[in-house]
């Protein structure tokens, strides 16, 4: 069906086997490695569509693999799978740039759903936006290819999440987009962040793009629902 390349990084032989078998049944092309360093090298050489990454690994632990990749601007989607699933570990995994976090033991169907959701989100983020590569909001313009915002003669670097939130709003201009919709598009299935997290991103976007962030002209809050973009 899909043929997308997935990399399973897991040193427990049985877990690696049963996860890989089931992903292959779904039509993915799966490769397995059992060592963090080897995984890092492999991802650098040829980034797969998604990495399913264990945390406790020989060679280098999963958190460090993720951290190094993000530092090198390798934005391959990462799904952490680990037995260490307390809140601190979850937060750490997501803060280091993981896309989602699955605590062992997990259900097969849940794994499949999360893999499909991350891939869908990742594909959406990679395809060209319906309105093109640039969004103009008065004096400000956002380049969706370089993730930069030009405001007057100043240029700002935007984060992936900021760009994706803006894109979710800009694809349906004038419509109210709920916070849940944004969470689903940008963070994905059973997203970790709260809706409050989106509000914080919106505050930063307004500071960058609005002439007067206190009384926004382009990014409007619709009380109790979400946001509306009026270019």
């Amino acid at each position, binding site marked *: 069906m899909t043929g997308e390349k997935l990399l399973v990084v897991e040193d*427990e032989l*049985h877990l690696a086997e049963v996860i890989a078998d*089931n992903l292959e049944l779904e039509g993915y092309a799966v490769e397995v490695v059992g060592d*963090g360093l080897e995984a890092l090298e492999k991802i650098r050489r040829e980034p797969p569509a998604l990495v399913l990454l264990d945390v406790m690994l*020989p060679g280098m632990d999963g958190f460090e693999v993720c951290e190094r990749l993000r530092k090198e601007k390798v934005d391959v989607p990462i799904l952490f799978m680990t*037995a*260490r699933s307390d809140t601190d570990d979850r937060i750490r995994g997501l803060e280091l740039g993981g896309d989602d976090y699955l605590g*062992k033991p997990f259900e*097969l169907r849940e794994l499949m759903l999360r893999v499909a959701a991350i891939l869908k989100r990742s594909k959406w983020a990679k395809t060209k936006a319906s309105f093109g590569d640039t969004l103009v909001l008065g004096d400000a313009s956002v380049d969706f290819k370089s993730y930069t915002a030009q405001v007057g003669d100043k240029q700002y670097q935007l984060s992936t999440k900021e760009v994706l939130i803006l894109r979710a709003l800009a694809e349906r201009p004038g419509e109210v987009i709920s916070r849940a919709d944004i969470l689903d598009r940008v963070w994905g299935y059973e997203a970790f962040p709260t809706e409050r997290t989106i509000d914080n991103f919106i505050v930063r976007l307004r500071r960058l793009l609005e002439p007067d962030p206190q009384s926004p002209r382009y990014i409007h809050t619709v009380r109790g629902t979400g946001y509306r973009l009026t270019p």
Partner: protein
Amino acid sequence: MISRKKAFVLYASSAAFVVALLAWWAFFFGRQGTLLANRMQSAGAPLTDEQIATLHAVAGETQRMFLAEGLTLCILLLGGMWSILRTMTRELALERQQKNFLSAITHELRSPIASARLYVESVLLGRADGEKKDRYLQRAMLDLDRLRTRVDDLLETARVNSAKPTLDIEPLDLSGIARDVVERLSKEHAVRGAKIELDAGSGVWVRTDARALDTVISNLVSNAVKYGGKDPRVLVRTEHTRTKALLYVRDYGPGLGGADPKRIFEPFVRGDDANVRAKGGVGLGLYLVRELVMAMGGRVRAKDGLEGGGTEIEIELALVEPRVRAEAKA
């Protein structure tokens, strides 16, 4: 909680302050005689050399008294602070060990549950048929066995911790038990490419508990396989002197990496590098070995930095006399 570094900085600053204070007292009282003499003379009271010498002598006495009191106080203060710092350092280390233990135990218990569950779920969802279904169920069984072993280890440790282990002591052939364990574990670890060799001496009899001895040798061999590097090789050797029975279990892996060979027998102690953390285990195997060997009246020690690499664990037990052996065999 205050970090170790902060505590050390606090201690070092306090110690420096106390030393500086003492130095200031020494300087201040050292000058008291001269200061007093100068003031009295400038106030119009000329002093004879004898009177000046007396003033210096009195100031010197005061100086010595203050310095002795200050020094005593300083030693008490620094000693107390050092003791607090040491306690805090120990508590931090213990906290870290317990955190490592929790993390390791979570991993060790949840991993086999996770894979057994996925194998069974795959079968139930009809995603594995025929040979694949059989294989999945067999793997799930192996995972459950692994889980049982982990739980047994934990329970055994809890039992050893709560009371002195009760052993069923009898004369036993150490080499024979080592042979059984090596045969059993060779099959179990063959899948990882491990090679377990036995060099068994004859007439190595000890007075001990069969189950406990089996646990000791099994833990040592499994540990050696675990830390034996790629394609691990393990050598189990038994020999005896006139009074001692000796068992050696050696791996040829990267060794302890500078860790203290004595500390590896402490509970929850495991190396900090990613390779050790990733090997699984909760840091109880060698602790259990030490406790059981001690209950047998024996000694255990680790040797690192051996020629050819690796670590060797030596178990020393009292050798059973030939007469007792003959009776036991009969």
